[in-house]
């Protein structure tokens, strides 16, 4: 019988020590730190442990050592396949970049019959067709769409209220399908609409071309109508009816809802979530208010500060977690996007939270007047008079638009990995760059992160998610499911 060697024979000799793999650390709370590696895997440890680790004094027999070795924070003599695995994971996270500009937003009209004070589009009243997109502009924009290399193309119709210019939607859908017969991409359509003016004819057309609907639902009727006034004061009723009609004709999962947070929403998070559940939605995106368009003009943006939104967010998140524990399948989408980055090797494509910033790279916006913007927020900024992120017009070539300094400068400067504070932040793998936001708020693509609401808010969210997972294994499981949706 041959001898079997003990475990000790396979362990790296104590004297040989270990090598550090690249990682960053940031405080989680008063006692603990979050460490993160190159691919966003994290580990929570006390400050003394971080010091021990860095000084190469962590004992190999400790649980901390084993955990850090397994999660690729350190390397020792008996294995170096960690290098190959890290490289593979880094590549996986960055793969999305090479398939750029998949999202194309067409602003087919600025007309709208609602008068939402927070509107990020400076809308025009119903009857001026000066604010409609023309077929010439649409055709040139479509040519640009198919110049993008992305294998997946999503065309989203926006406004104003896009259904008020339904013939233009049809023109663009048909133009896209014709071009796609040759280009053979994975093509999808979405209409972002308040559903107040939807008709059977429009629904039939959407059914025929597999068009998805994205609509606004701010909460229960009183809150929704207060946020979203229209003649007749019946925005909520129309939305609910519209949602049902869409489901009947297109299918139950063919409509999604988006909420906007206002000062009035801040005390009502449970009511808002309950409304979504009542209407058979399986998740909600608890969105902050962005500082663009009418929102700034009407001082709605200033009306609430960062800590009240955070309270709103975490009250909502904790309520949703409670529901999940009771067996209700309901996801908070901001959390699930971040959790994908924290818990899986994949990179969700959510444009608001990416670095390098995906302005231009992730999405392009074709305004009704032919101007082309790097993102939806860029267009909103232009409506306020700031043309910084206007890339050009539909008469420009795709390469001119994407290679212009107007795009490259903010991309390069804002790249979080090189930005001060961001470059050493443990949460950087989960965060985004958002040069448009920082330019709008601080006149600087990079932004002064210590005073940036974007930074404070995001860090509070990252800390909140990690603390919850550390405290409760059941939450860890629920979050893991969300991360892998």
């Amino acid at each position: 019988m041959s001898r079997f060697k003990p475990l000790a024979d396979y362990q790296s000799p104590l004297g040989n020590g270990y090598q550090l793999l690249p990682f960053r650390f940031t405080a989680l709370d008063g006692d603990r730190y979050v460490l993160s590696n190159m691919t966003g895997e994290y580990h929570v440890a006390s400050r003394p442990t971080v010091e021990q680790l860095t000084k190469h004094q962590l004992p190999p027999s400790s649980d901390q050592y084993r955990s850090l070795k397994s999660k690729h924070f350190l390397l020792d003599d008996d294995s170096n396949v960690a290098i190959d695995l890290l490289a593979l994971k880094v590549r996986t996270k960055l793969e999305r970049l090479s398939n750029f500009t998949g999202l194309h937003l067409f602003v087919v009209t600025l007309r709208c019959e609602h008068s939402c004070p927070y509107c990020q589009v400076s809308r025009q009243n119903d009857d001026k067709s000066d604010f409609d997109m023309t077929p010439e502009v649409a055709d040139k924009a479509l040519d640009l769409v198919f110049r993008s290399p992305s294998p997946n193309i999503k065309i989203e119709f926006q406004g104003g209220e896009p259904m008020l210019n339904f013939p233009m939607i049809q023109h663009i859908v048909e133009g896209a399908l014709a071009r796609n017969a040759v280009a053979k991409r994975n093509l999808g359509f979405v209409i972002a609409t308040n559903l107040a003016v939807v008709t059977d004819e429009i629904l039939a057309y959407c059914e025929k071309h597999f068009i998805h609907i994205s609509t606004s639902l701010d909460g229960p009727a009183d809150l929704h109508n207060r946020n979203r006034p229209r003649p007749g004061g019946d925005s909520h009723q129309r939305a609910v009816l519209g949602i049902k009609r869409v489901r009947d004709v297109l299918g139950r999962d063919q409509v999604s809802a988006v909420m906007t947070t206002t000062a009035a929403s801040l005390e009502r998070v449970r009511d808002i979530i309950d409304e979504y559940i009542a209407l058979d939605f399986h998740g909600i995106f608890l969105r902050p208010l962005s500082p663009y368009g009418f929102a700034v003009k009407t001082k709605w943006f200033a009306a609430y500060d960062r800590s009240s939104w955070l309270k709103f967010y975490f009250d909502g998140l904790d309520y949703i977690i409670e529901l999940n524990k009771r067996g209700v399948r309901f996801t908070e989408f901001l959390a699930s996007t971040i959790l994908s980055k924290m818990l899986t090797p994949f990179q969700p494509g959510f444009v608001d939270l990416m670095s390098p910033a995906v302005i231009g790279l992730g999405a392009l916006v074709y305004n009704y007047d032919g101007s082309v913007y790097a993102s939806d927020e860029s267009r909103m900024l232009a409506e306020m008079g700031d043309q910084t992120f206007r890339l050009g017009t539909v008469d420009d070539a795709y390469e001119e638009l994407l290679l212009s300094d107007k795009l490259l400068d903010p991309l390069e400067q804002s790249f979080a990995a090189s930005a001060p504070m961001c470059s050493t932040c443990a949460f950087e793998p989960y965060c985004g760059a958002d040069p448009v936001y920082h330019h709008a708020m601080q006149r600087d693509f990079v932004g002064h992160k210590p005073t940036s609401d974007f930074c404070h808010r995001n860090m509070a969210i990252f800390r909140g998610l990690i603390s919850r997972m550390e405290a409760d294994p059941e939450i860890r499981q629920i979050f893991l499911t969300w991360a892998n949706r």
Partner: protein
Amino acid sequence: MLTRRGTGLTIVKGSNATAPRILRLSGDADRPMPLRKREGYISRRGEMPAGFAWYLLIGQSGEPDGPAVAAESAAIFLPEEFAHLGDGDVVRIAEGRGGISVLFQKAARHNSFLLTERCNNYCLMCSQPPRNVDDSWIYDDIMAAIPLVDTGTPEIGFTGGEPTLLGERLGKLVHQCKSYLPRTGLHVLTNGRAFVDANFARGFADIGHRDLMFGIPVYSDLSEVHDYVVQADGAFDETIRGILNLKRFGVMVEIRVVVHKQTYDRLPDLARFIARNLTFVDQVVFMGLEMTGFTKANLEDLWIDPVAYQPQLVEAVSYLERSRVKVSVYNHQLCITDKRLWPYAKRSISDWKNEYMPECEGCAVRQECAGFFSSARLRYSAHIRPMQAVPERA
């Protein structure tokens, strides 16, 4: 436990007998004549319908005054334990030592071909302890056997020892399966280390087998623990690199984890490691310990009552499931398996290995349970008990 091998058996050969070494069996006395020339007839009452290459005389005495064997034929006398042989089975008859081995059983749920007894790992719980012998003759036998296997067979396995030690011959065997068993899945058990050579890995993708999967054990998220369990320095790194190469070329990979005292406590960490680093594997299976081979020598270091590691197993399975990695649990008896794992528990012990214990008497879910390896009589859970009613399965 079905008898699949025998030696020192009496063989009588006709003067002109071709006596093929590898042959398919038939129990049909009206078998078409052209087929009989290369097949063996299973004779249960001493009858010998003319024209077969071999007669397998079950339960007959080998006395010289027995029935005469035709000139072109040969006969082998088998004890009653071989009565389970049936139509479509494939056997090897080694004249020299009067030996018979059953290579393939049509009625069995699982069929595996042992390609070699050599191995470059030395697992603490190896159920087929390696022998450093020249068994290259096995290759020829299997190449001959594959075309005889029933083409309706859903799946067959290659095992060992370490199949990749056959080098390019393994590829030839896979190709033989592609050619002669085009609708049969092929599951090859291997430690995966040889696939560190990217060209070797690519070669298997190039064969174009419709349904080829490599089952590769990874026992821990920590290299030193894996290397200890397989008793080979550097094995972890090579195995992981091997898996990466196979997946790079689109070959299917299953990760296998035997749960025992050395592996159970980091099972959740291993699940996380797989979900994060090897998310693209086709499935993960957690297996119970077999009480055979080296396990007996290392029992004190390996044995843990399966009831004791259910929490870790549930956590690991749940983690993989939520991470959308396909996962199964093999070789665990239902009564000692956490109910949450029942949807993942498969009835997986090969017929020739499985049995039930006295404690199983009266159990209502026997049919759905994997039962035990015969070898389990050596040691098994103290908590085996019959289940009362058919439980809810998620």
